[in-house]
């Protein structure tokens, strides 16, 4: 059963079309990343999924409930972290989360607040005023707020923005943990490694339109890509690599580096093949998504 079903979703702000005829679906338990440059329509789409913004046309159905006619039912099962966490700075963390649990109709609100404090590891600051917390803690309180009523769908708008690398890793681990518990997650980001770390599927938006949606491997152009660097690059290296079974394409890059695209894991074969040319480095190629992203979302595209 699909968790999110979006059909021909369009949103205009005056003359500007922020979201233009979007259609996609997200299955239960999926982790989907919204990727796109600033102003691509990521936040607008997310706001329409949560019922804080109405659509100009098109429909959003979440767990079988149409958001236009049954927003309350949708909001009971959706947890949402907006780009700016909606925090009342004059409240303590605990009283704020209790308030959130109540208005989000959690079953036993105070218990739910205490549970989420443990889960997001806020125990040390639970009694402090939110206004006195560091940015990392505030972001975590924002995540806690989205989780407090145990939603089945989590919508996170740039959940790791402004966090330091350690905090980012923590948030990612938390998201991965949630997905194990069959929570569907939609998150937006423009940090590509983050998508690669947590998302099973990516939707790339540009100027309000979907320009690509696929699994990560699918987007990179091949299921597997290997990058090797040799000491003595030559045409022979290229032809030797191309001849390996399962290899689809070989690209010669700068400084003796080659990118090998293949259907399955060919690392062992590649290593054996290039060892005679002076193998210096080898690893899975991470540059794929970045290339795709830049190619698809360059602002001069089609202009």
């Amino acid at each position, binding site marked *: 059963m699909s968790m999110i079903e979006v059909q021909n979703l369009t949103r205009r702000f005056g003359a500007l079309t922020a979201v233009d005829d979007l259609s996609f679906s997200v299955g239960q338990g999926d982790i989907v990343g919204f990727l796109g440059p600033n102003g691509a329509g990521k936040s607008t789409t997310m706001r329409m999924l949560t019922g*804080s*913004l109405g659509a100009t046309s098109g429909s959003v159905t979440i767990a079988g409930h149409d958001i236009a006619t049954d927003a309350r039912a949708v909001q009971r099962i959706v947890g949402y972290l907006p780009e700016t966490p909606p925090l*009342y*700075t004059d409240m303590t963390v605990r009283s704020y989360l209790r308030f*959130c649990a109540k*208005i989000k109709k959690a079953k036993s609100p105070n218990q739910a607040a205490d549970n989420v404090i443990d889960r997001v590891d806020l125990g040390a600051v639970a009694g402090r005023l939110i206004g006195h917390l560091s940015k990392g803690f505030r972001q975590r309180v924002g995540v806690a707020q989205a989780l407090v009523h145990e939603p089945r769908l989590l919508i996170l708008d740039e959940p790791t923005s402004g966090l330091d690398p350690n905090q980012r890793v923590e948030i990612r681990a938390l998201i991965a943990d949630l997905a194990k518990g069959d929570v569907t997650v939609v998150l937006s980001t423009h940090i590509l490694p983050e998508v690669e770390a947590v998302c099973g599927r990516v939707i790339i938006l540009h100027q309000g339109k979907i320009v690509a949606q696929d699994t990560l491997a699918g987007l990179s152009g091949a299921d597997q890509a290997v990058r090797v660097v040799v000491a003595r690059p030559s045409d022979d290296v290229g032809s030797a690599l191309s001849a390996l079974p399962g290899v689809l394409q070989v690209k010669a890059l700068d400084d003796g580096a080659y990118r090998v695209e293949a259907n399955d894991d060919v690392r062992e074969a590649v290593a054996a093949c290039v060892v005679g040319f002076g193998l210096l480095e080898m690893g899975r190629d991470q540059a794929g998504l970045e290339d795709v992203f830049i190619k698809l979302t360059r602002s001069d595209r089609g202009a």
Partner: protein
Amino acid sequence: MAVLTIAAREFRATFNSTIGWLVLAAFLFLNGVFFLMWLTYFAEASAQFSGGAYGDVQLLLSEQLFAPFYGNVATILLFICPALSMRMFAEERSQRTLELLLTSPISTAEIVLGKFLGALGFVTVLLAGLLYGPLLLWWWSTPDIGALVTGNLALFLVAASTIAIGALFSSFTDNQITALVVTVSVCLALYIIGAVGDQDSIWGQISILSHIDDLFLGGIRLSDVSYFVGLIGVFLFATHQKVESYRWS
């Protein structure tokens, strides 16, 4: 249920804010001074009238003390309630916390009503803080309890109307000062507009002033009470429409 949750948060937030305590202090101090002033005046007038050329004339506490005093309180409420209502939506807009309320499974009506009741709760504390003056008078005299009740009812209705008006203008802006200035202007206009015509004219009918005089003297009329209830209803409904429109803009 959600209404009470939001009202409770709103009430506490006012006590957590500097403006809340400033309002409380200013309100109690100014009205304390006014009460003392009218009490002194009443005592002097009573002394003059008793055993004077007109014989023994009994001045009524309700007419000579409560009514003018509550008139002053009502005027101060016109300035102080907008300072309470200004943050209602403007702060949520500027702090981007409104998104939390708009994406929770609660209706816009619950949000507006909750916030209104929260602010009204604070005003009730303010008005309760004024009761000590009139109640002390029981030591020496027996004031008309009816006038005391209707007088406080009038103040409560004035405060509730002002907050409802303030809620609307707060929902139009991110800037609390803008909300404050516009609300005070509109309330002041609504207060003094009766001066344009006499009490039965259209101007008199829409003026706040012409609907509180009788209440201050102990007379309760359906038309006066329904005027305030109507005023509150109209402005809360308009606020509801405005907040609902956030979802579309």
